[in-house]
């Protein structure tokens, strides 16, 4: 399967409908690469004309800015905005809520204004438009699934319903954790915590959240963020529940259940 590059489109004088911003996790993290591949397979099936930046993509600067390193953030933003504007990018979809937030909310004031869509909203639109058709007997039909809200999707951008609507298409049994939506508990990765050891405490944040999820005995914990996915996967492994409970991205769930 060929993954088209923006530079190829550009060389041919064409423009894709949408740029898929893969993000660092989706590009390099082995677990998150599976999410990227699942999302690509959906894009191919529904025949969306998309492209990726490939080697021209760079970190948005989200973790640098949140660690307090504004210089580095501004450097990354400058570089990315140059790339995006040179290609005259109009519409971006991404599977990472952190990239989504930075591209959508923090780049406009720096000269980079695009229509930025998180893949949860993108998938919901494809489902609503009937472009994604689900199998009669999907592998997750009737399964007990709980959705973990990503902070950067939920509180940061008020996207609570789209990922849930996407999950509804699976015809599964959706259950909510006690702390959900605007009260959702962080996975512990945000604010550049992903890249450092946690501070001293009684329990790790990802375990606190995993324990809460396991209390309602789901078969799948659904996420819409590669970092949440990593944190919860680690939590489930820590509780030695990886045989019973899967942690999957909404794109993976849809890719596995669509015709």
């Amino acid at each position: 399967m060929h993954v088209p590059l923006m530079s190829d489109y550009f060389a041919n004088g064409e423009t894709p409908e949408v740029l898929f911003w893969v993000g660092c996790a989706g590009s390099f993290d082995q677990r998150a690469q599976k999410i990227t591949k699942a999302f690509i397979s959906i894009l191919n099936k529904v025949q969306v004309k998309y492209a990726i930046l490939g080697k021209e993509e760079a970190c948005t600067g989200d973790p640098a800015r949140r660690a307090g390193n504004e210089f580095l953030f501004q450097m990354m933003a400058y570089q990315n905005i140059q790339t995006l504007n040179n290609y005259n990018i109009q519409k971006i979809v991404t599977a990472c809520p952190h990239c989504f937030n930075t591209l959508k909310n923090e780049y406009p004031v720096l000269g980079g204004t695009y229509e930025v869509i998180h893949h949860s909203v993108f998938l919901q639109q494809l489902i609503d438009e009937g472009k994604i058709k689900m199998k009669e007997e999907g592998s997750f039909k009737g399964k007990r699934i709980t959705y973990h809200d990503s902070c950067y999707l939920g509180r940061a951008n008020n996207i609570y319903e789209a990922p849930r609507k996407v999950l509804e298409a699976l015809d599964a049994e959706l259950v909510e954790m006690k702390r959900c939506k605007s009260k959702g508990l962080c996975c512990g990765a945000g604010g550049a915590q992903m890249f450092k050891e946690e501070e001293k405490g009684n329990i790790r944040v990802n375990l606190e959240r995993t324990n809460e999820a396991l209390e309602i005995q789901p078969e799948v914990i659904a996420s819409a963020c590669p970092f949440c996915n990593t944190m919860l996967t680690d939590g489930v492994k820590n509780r030695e529940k990886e045989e019973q409970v899967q942690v999957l991205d909404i794109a993976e769930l849809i890719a596995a259940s669509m015709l």
Partner: protein
Amino acid sequence: MQIVLQLIFTIIAIAGIGLFVRRLMGIRKNILLGRDANYTDQPSARRKNVLLLAFGQKKMFRNPLVAILHFFVYAGFIIINIEVLEIILDGILGTHRLFAPVLGAFYSFLINSFEILAVLVIFACATFLARRNIIKLKRFISKDLDGWPRSDANYILITEIVLMLLFLTMNSTDQVLQSKGYGHYAAHPTGPFLISGWIAPLFAGLSNGMLVAIERSCWWLHILGILAFMNYLPYSKHLHIILAFPNAYYARLQPLGIINNMPAIQNEVLYAMQPELAPAPDTNAAPARFGAKDVFDLTWRNLLDAYSCTECGRCSAACPANMTGKLLSPRKIMMDTRDRLEEVSRNIHANGTFVDDNKSLLHNYISVEELRACTTCNACVEECPVSISPLEIIMELRRCLIMEESNAPQEWNVMSSNIENNFAPWKFSPDDRDKWASEML
């Protein structure tokens, strides 16, 4: 005698209100020690926030039961204060129940409403006292509140109960005196009120002199209590009853995910990349500080937040770092900011201008370990009923740590150098960024 009392009352009332206003002006001055920031765009959205968040207490209704109890106290406080207008006029003019003959039946309706509210206030405050001292909710027994802040909360609740009891007792004794046809009380017949009429029989056996003494004591204690309480407010967490309104008006309207831009650095990067755009260097410009080390480096908006905080702790209860035993508590961030600002204000007051005291908000009040624990999840911001952002202060202090003090954990230095050199926070070659694509079948 009467004229002397009127004079004493007038002096006390003017002094009470005057002191209160003076202290508020002082607080305004302290808040304006912060950096300038623009929070006046979109006035209609801001007015709507005042209605929803301040008057409507929308965020409180995330827990409806507590919201209703809180609403009793809030409504009681605002509405019963209409009665204070009559009390103050009576005090100045030497009249008794000035509004009764003017308003007629409506007067009884008003006082009946106030009395019902008074009972609801007593009930709510008693429940709140129980939640703090008997049920001991986690956010109220937190070490954030050790010492003065915990007492402060109890004093407020007890004072409110006492003020309401004084009001009801005053009405009861007044009514007994009316029924006995005594003096000027009889000249202003109001008939029995809903609640005080019900407790009036308790006072029926007392002598006229005793009844007058009780009625007058309650009247004086009630109004003196209110004036004293008003002057206690600006030194207490209870200031939120006033500042919740401006704080809602100046609420942050952009999506919570945005971390404030730093135009100075934006330009510095721009000029490094495109030197032709750089203006001639201004040699007179004082070097700006990156991020915030002390309260002066925060915006006035952050400092208004600090004075608006009522230390309820909803932020810390929702904070993933706090609930997992880390040192960080968003409530403490706000309390520290206010404490430091008060310290700075005392310093300025004593010296005429701020004299360096070798202290700062960062390090002396808020430690590196606290700041390092934040996941920027915005749970604290989302929970705050009065539109405070502890996260904004945390971020500004983090910026100072990294950019002014080069104080970062080793892993963050590695992350930064990876982002800088490999364009990803991990140590992978940028050439492998799309390697996954070649692995797709």
